[in-house]
C-alpha cells in the first residue's frame, strides 16, 4: 500500500500535465517510470512490451471493460482512481469471477495538476491492493485543454471462474429470493453533494468498494447463486428491471424493506430524487433459491461490507417481466427503469 510516500516524479518541475507527457518522448517515459511503474510495479525483466503475456490457471475467464468520467475527481469516500478499480473488479465479481488483472487507460486533460494525478495513481494502487488485483498494462494519452474533464480512466479486467455455477439473469427462477447487500444511494448523493452549485452540507460518503471478497464468501459457501448485479448507474430500480427483462420473470419488492440511511433519505426528499434510482458503487443484489436466503444473508453479514444485508423481495411466477413495488403504505405500483437522468424538480 502507498500511504504517504513521496512520488519520485519531479512534481515541482512539472506541476501540471503537459501535452508532451502523452507524446511518446522523454517526458512520457519519465512519467511512466517515475510515477506509474513506481506505483504499479517494476518493469518486466525483459523490458516493456506492446502487450502483457499472462498465464491463467483455468480456461474459463470473465473479461470486462468500463470507463470512468466522474466529476468531481475527488469526492467524499473515494475518487476517480478507486472508482476505476472497484467498478471493473465488481463487474467481474458479479459474474462470479475472481478478478486478477486490470488494464489502465488514462486520457488526461492538459493542465491537470501533477499532484492530483499522483493522488489518483496512489488511490488506484491502494484499491488494487485491497481488491487483490494487479495492474498489468496501461496507456496514457494527453488531450488539449478543454477537451477532457481533468482525467478520464478506462479499466478492463480479467477474472477467472473457478466454480461450475451458471450466474446470469437467464438462470433466475420463480420463487427465488432477492437479497441486497446493504443500504442504497450513498454514492450518488455524495457526488451530488460535492458538485459545484449543488453543494449542501452532508456527511454522506460514497459506498465505493470492491465486492469480490463478499462474492467469494457466498460462492465458497456452496450457495446456488442464480444472478448477481451491482447497483451502479440507475440504481436498484434499473438493476431489477434489467434482470426482469432479461430473465422474462416479474419481480416484486417491498419499498419499506430497502435499506436507506436517514441522511440519504433526507437528501433525496429535499432534491426530489428517489433513492431506488440513485447510483451505488459498493452495493449489489444476489438472487438465490428461497430456501438458501437466510444462509446467504448470514454469510453476507460476516463481512464488513455486508452488514446491512437483507431480503427485499422475490422473483414471481409467469407474467409480464416488470418490477412491481409494494409502497410504504401497502399499495402496489410499477417500479420502472429511469428515463434519462434524475433531474432536481422545481418545487
Amino acid at each position, binding site marked *: 500500500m502507498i500511504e504517504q510516500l513521496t512520488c519520485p516524479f519531479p512534481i515541482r518541475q512539472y506541476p501540471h500535465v503537459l501535452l508532451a507527457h502523452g507524446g511518446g518522448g522523454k517526458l512520457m517515459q519519465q512519467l511512466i517510470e517515475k510515477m506509474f511503474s513506481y506505483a504499479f510495479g517494476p518493469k518486466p525483466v525483459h523490458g516493456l512490451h506492446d502487450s502483457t503475456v499472462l498465464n491463467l490457471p483455468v480456461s474459463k475467464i470473465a473479461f470486462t471493460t468500463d470507463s470512468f468520467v466522474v466529476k468531481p475527481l475527488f469526492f467524499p469516500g473515494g475518487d476517480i482512481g478507486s472508482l476505476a478499480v472497484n467498478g471493473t473488479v465488481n463487474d467481474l465479481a458479479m459474474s462470479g469471477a475472481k478478478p486478477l488483472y486490470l488494464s489502465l487507460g488514462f486520457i488526461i486533460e492538459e493542465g491537470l495538476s501533477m499532484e492530483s494525478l499522483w493522488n489518483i495513481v496512489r488511490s488506484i494502487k491502494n484499491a488494487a491492493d485491497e481488491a487483490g488485483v494487479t495492474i498489468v498494462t496501461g496507456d496514457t494519452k494527453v488531450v488539449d485543454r478543454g477537451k477532457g474533464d481533468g482525467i478520464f480512466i478506462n479499466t478492463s479486467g480479467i477474472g477467472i471462474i473457478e466454480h461450475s455455477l451458471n450466474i446470469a439473469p437467464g438462470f433466475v427462477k420463480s420463487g427465488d429470493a432477492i437479497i441486497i447487500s446493504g443500504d442504497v444511494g450513498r454514492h450518488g448523493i455524495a457526488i451530488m453533494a460535492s458538485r459545484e452549485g449543488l453543494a449542501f452540507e452532508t456527511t454522506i460518503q460514497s459506498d465505493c468498494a470492491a465486492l469480490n471478497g463478499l462474492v467469494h464468501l457466498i460462492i465458497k459457501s456452496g450457495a446456488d447463486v442464480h444472478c448477481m448485479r451491482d447497483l451502479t448507474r440507475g440504481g436498484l430500480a434499473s438493476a431489477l428491471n434489467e434482470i426482469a427483462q432479461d430473465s422474462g420473470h416479474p419481480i416484486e419488492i417491498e419499498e419499506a424493506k430497502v435499506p436507506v440511511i436517514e441522511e440519504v433519505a433526507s437528501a433525496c426528499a429535499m432534491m426530489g430524487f428517489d433513492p431506488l434510482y440513485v447510483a451505488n458503487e459498493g452495493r449489489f443484489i444476489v438472487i438465490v433459491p428461497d430456501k438458501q436466503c437466510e444462509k446467504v444473508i448470514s454469510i453476507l453479514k460476516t463481512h464488513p461490507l455486508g452488514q446491512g444485508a437483507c431480503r427485499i423481495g422475490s422473483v414471481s411466477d409467469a407474467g409480464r417481466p416488470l418490477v412491481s413495488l409494494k409502497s410504504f403504505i401497502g399499495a402496489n405500483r*410499477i417500479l420502472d427503469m429511469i428515463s434519462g437522468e434524475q433531474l432536481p*424538480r422545481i418545487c
Partner: protein
Amino acid sequence: MKYLDEYRDPVLASQLSRQIHKMATKPWVIMEVCGGQTHSIVKFGIDTLLPDEIELVHGPGCPVCVTPLETIDRALAIAGRRDIIFCSFGDMLRVPGSTTDLLSVKALGGDIRIVYSPLDAIKVAQDNPKKEVVFFAVGFESTAPANAMAVYQAKKLGLKNFSLLVSHVLVPPAMDAILSSKSNRVQGFLAAGHVCAVMGYTEYFTIAEKYKVPIVVTGFEPLDILQGIAMCVQQLEEGRVEVENQYVRSVTKEGNLHAQDLISKVFKVIPRKWRGIGEIPNSGFSLNNEYQDFDADLKFKLGHIKTLESLQCLSGLILQGIKKPYECSAFGVKCSPESPLGATMVSTEGACSAYYRYKR
C-alpha cells in the same frame, strides 16, 4: 426519517382508507390541484386504496406542464446564444419546445446550468460579469417568493448582467377557469398545500361559494392526501361547502405575509397563457415597472416566436381533468418520457409521466 415516516404509516393509511370507504355513498370527482400531489398519489398507490365511488382527476398544478410553448421557445432561443449563461430548475430541461429542448441546446454548446435556487443564479452572475445570466423563473405562488428575492437582491447589488425569463402562474384563477368550463366534472378540490403556505387560503372562499365546491387545503405525504380526501368526501356527502385546512402544520389562513409583501414589491398580476389550456385572465405574474430592467423578454427583444405544438397531444384536456393519460392514443406509443410530445409526460409531476412510470 423524522417528519416523513409519520405521514407514511401503513396502519394509519389503511384506517383512513376504510373511513373513506364507509363515508362514500355516491360517486364523487375530486381534483388534486398540485402536480406534487399527483406524483404522491401515483407513486404511493393512494388511488388504489380508494373506493370505486371516488375518482381523482389531476389538476393543472405542474409548472413544467403549463409553461406555454412560446416561453419554452424563447428560453431555447436565449439559451443557445454564446454570450448567455442560462440557469434553470432541473426539470425544465427536458420540456419539448417546438423543435428542440434545453438538454439538446446544452449538448450543442449552450451554457445551461441547473440551479436549486434563483439565488444561485445571482452568484453565477456575480462570478461571470462578462456574460449575461438569465434565470428561467417558472412556477406557482410557492416559487414566486424566492424568484422575487433574486430580482430584489440583483437590484440592490446593482447587477446589470442578470435577468429573469418569467412564466409565473397562479392557482386560484386556474381553478376558476376549470370550474367555469362547460365540460367541468370536478366536484371538490384538494388545494395545493405549498401554494397556500405562501398565500394563505382566503382567496378560496369566493371560489367555494361561487361554484358550490368544497376545497380542502392538503399536503403531499400519503396520510395528508388520504386525510384531505376524507375531509372532502365528508363535506360532499354532508352537502357542506367549506374551505378546510388539512395541512395545518404548514398553512395558516393568512399565509406568509413577508413572502406576499416581497412578491407584491416585484411582480404584477397579468393575464397568462397556460400550455394546453389557453389564456386565463389574472393568472400570472410578470415583473412590475420598477424591475423591468431585469426582464429577459424585454432585454433580448425576441419579438414574436412561431410555435408548433403536437396535434396528437391531449395535455390540455388532461390538465383540466377532462381526460386521463391512458385515454390519449399517443400515450406509451408515440409519447413516453424518453420522447415526450407534451410537457405532462416530462415532469415527474406531470400526470402522463406519473401514469407512465407507475401505472402502465
